[in-house]
């Protein structure tokens, strides 16, 4: 019998796409559905998903937890847990529509939460770490429950199915965000599980990824030293944790994190200016086990922006396009052209070259 994510490691080939309006103007999720649907053949119907940023302006100070439940027992147990740790501002089932190709749907719920102040204080953790640990506990300890989105003013929507169907399933045309990413999955040895679809998120970080990294177990075994639990055993999961670790915990910049994950070759570093050389050598020496090898193209979503990054050999296709304030990232150019035929600029970033698009009014530091 085929095992599902978490029992075994699932490599997958895929399609990714992303868009951001740097002016902060919000777009409906429909553009992403249109974009990803052009790359239909890069998916096999075993997973699709979206992440939207800026979609919950009314609850922007609350962590939006999206959960899958296999059954109501799991839901009860989880909600008990959530109540013990959070103030729940609002909770409801996530609205979906019937789509013929989307089957066996779990119970899908959304909670806007804020840590209980006394609990948070006694934990001696910062707020984000507190939330992250709670997410891990639900995912590891409660059978049949799975938190698949946990950031503020952002949300991940994913399912087993072709991505365009998933988008319609979640009625994404009704959501508006300043940035979107999406993913169509082509796993090679799983029946596909809802939780295993992309994007993978932790707090406000979300990752869509096309590739199959060869460094997986080196990365996983390292990152797990810092409290992360790779329950899905997917590349996307470990990549998300790596960025969370480097950006949130170690306070690296996006560019620095990119130089850890897709480090320049030693020989390339040799050719750089002394200052760059020192910094890059230092990063490689500090975080050698977070170097990711093997093919990948990822879009990292974060509060206020998107980052596109390829593996250092650029073993996966990925292009970036710009039109006015809008910036696009996709596995294939067609996925951009279909939603913006007239681009100011389109190019293919080099392997290891991080492309960061942030909101003009200040997103995160690069």
């Amino acid at each position, binding site marked *: 019998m085929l095992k599902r994510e978490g029992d075994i490691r699932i490599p997958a080939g895929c399609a990714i796409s992303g868009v951001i309006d740097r002016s902060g103007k919000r777009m409906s999720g429909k553009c992403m559905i249109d974009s990803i649907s052009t790359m239909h053949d890069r998916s096999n119907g075993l997973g699709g998903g979206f992440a939207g940023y800026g979609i919950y302006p009314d609850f922007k100070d609350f962590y939006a937890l999206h959960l899958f439940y296999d059954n109501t027992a799991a839901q009860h147990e989880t909600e008990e847990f959530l109540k013990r740790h959070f103030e729940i501002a609002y909770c409801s089932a996530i609205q979906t529509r019937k789509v013929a190709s989307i089957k066996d749907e779990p119970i899908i719920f959304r909670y806007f939460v804020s840590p209980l102040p006394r609990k948070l204080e006694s934990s001696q953790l910062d707020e984000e770490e507190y939330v992250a640990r709670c997410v891990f506990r639900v995912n590891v300890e409660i059978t049949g429950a799975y938190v698949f989105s946990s950031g503020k003013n952002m949300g991940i929507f994913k399912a087993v199915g072709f991505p365009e169907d998933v988008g319609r399933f979640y009625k994404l045309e009704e959501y508006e965000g300043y940035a979107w990413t999406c993913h169509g999955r082509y796993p090679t*040895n799983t029946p596909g599980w809802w939780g295993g679809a992309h994007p993978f998120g932790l707090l406000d970080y979300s990752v869509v990824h096309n590739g199959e990294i060869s460094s997986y177990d080196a990365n996983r075994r390292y990152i797990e*030293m810092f409290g992360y639990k790779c329950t899905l055993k997917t590349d996307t999961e470990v990549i998300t944790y790596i960025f969370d670790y480097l950006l949130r915990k170690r306070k690296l910049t996006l560019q620095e994190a990119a130089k850890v994950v897709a480090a320049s070759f030693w020989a390339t570093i040799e050719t750089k200016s002394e200052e760059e050389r020192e910094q890059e050598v230092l990063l490689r020496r500090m975080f050698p086990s977070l170097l990711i090898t093997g093919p990948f193209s990822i879009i990292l979503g974060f509060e206020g922006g998107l980052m596109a990054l390829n593996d250092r050999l650029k073993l996966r296709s990925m292009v970036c396009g710009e039109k006015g304030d809008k910036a696009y990232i996709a596995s294939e150019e067609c996925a951009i052209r279909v939603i913006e035929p007239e681009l100011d600029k389109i190019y293919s970033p080099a392997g290891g070259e991080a492309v960061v698009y942030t909101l003009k009014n200040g997103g995160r530091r690069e």
Partner: protein
Amino acid sequence: MDMFIYPEYEVVRNPDLCIGCRVCERQCANEVHHYDFDLKKMVADSTKCVNCHRCVCLCPTHALKIVKSQDTYKTNANWENQTINEVYRQAATGGVLLSSMGNPKPFPIYWDKILLNASQVTNPPIDPLREPMETTVYLGRQKCEVVRDGSGKLKNTLAPQLKLNMPIMFSAMSYGSISYNAHEALARAATELGTYYNTGEGGLHKDFYQYGPNTIVQVASGRFGVFKDYLDTGAAIEIKMGQGAKPGIGGHLPGKKISADVSATRMIPQGVDAISPAPHHDIYSIEDLRQLIYSLKESTAYKKPVIVKVAAVHNVAAIASGIARSGADIIAIDGFRGGTGAAPTRIRDNVGIPIELALASVDSRLREEGIRDNVSIVVGGSIRSSADVVKAIALGADACYIATAAVLAMGCHLCRTCNVGKCNWGIATQVPELVKRLNPDVAAERLVNLVTAWNHEIQEIMGGMGINSIEALRGNRLMLRGVGLNETELKILGIRHAGESL
């Protein structure tokens, strides 16, 4: 009268091929061969033969071979010939049996029960001839604070590290146990390769201070040749707590090997036995070790990483955990098959555990405790090939120590009689005429060749896995699968059985 013991190996000469050049005679320090002027031919006395193959290799007509003798006692699976002979020897001498080099007994070799992965379809293999394939390794503590200067630039808060061009270093072999020329060859090869060799516990000959940037200086229980200049000269300092070939046992270099030069280098009298105590008498506990580590760091201004070398013993994971918390930058673990210039046979053959299991348990333990990046792990004790190196790194090692392979490259034929001091290959000897047989030009070149070849193979294997930097291989146990291993073994190694999917 001593019991006559039929030689274990016999010299066989093909009379049709022997031209009587007498090269074998001139090259055998054990005086096995001589030309008989009455018989007008070469003759050999196999009782003196140690099976070092010097004569076999140098015979220009390949007229010689050495074969296992067929003489046998009545077959007995329990009392094998060697077992019986050892009883005879001890009955005759009353002495502890001595041997050299690594444990030759047929214990399982886990390296050979582990298979490597390669990319197919979903993930491309990488061709090292076309793409960079990085094998550079930095050894030392990686854990550090992220600190920025005023301009936001990252400051280097790392502890001192060692940079290796490939994850292979030459393991400790002391000057005294091996010859001046062997030491020179190791030093020069390490320098050319961009890696390190290790002085062992015999101090560092003045002539070799020039290779200091590629030298690891060892501080062992005998403290031979340890003084300020020595510590300052090395790139790193290794505290030797134990050795895989003889855990729990000290060292004993007989006085006849303490030549004038060895004496000066070790700072001990000439001709007097050099005794390394079994323990460091200032280290009876982990906190004592911490003191020594910091003493050494203090005396070298915190500029050099400190390595603590231990033998792989049953409790190695806990020991390593203690070391990782004691200020050491690198832990070297020496498996039970590691070589030696001399060890009591019973110790060599019965004490310690395989390096594969020790490494896996140490790596897992340090990760469980979240302190794996406190230290680098270097493993030795019979790393026989580039495949062993790759498997060791995938199990969790940062780099490997090689010594037996290195002396093999220099000419050693594993006759395992280093303790006698008459090494016909000029390696494990201090006899000037024998030392001369090892031209460091040749030996260094062969060492460089060996390691370069291994490194090429490592790159090929990594490329096959789709990994283009050695960092991404370290601890990447998914790249390993066991064959013919039981559940316990798989669990300790932290790998799945072959056939189990990703």
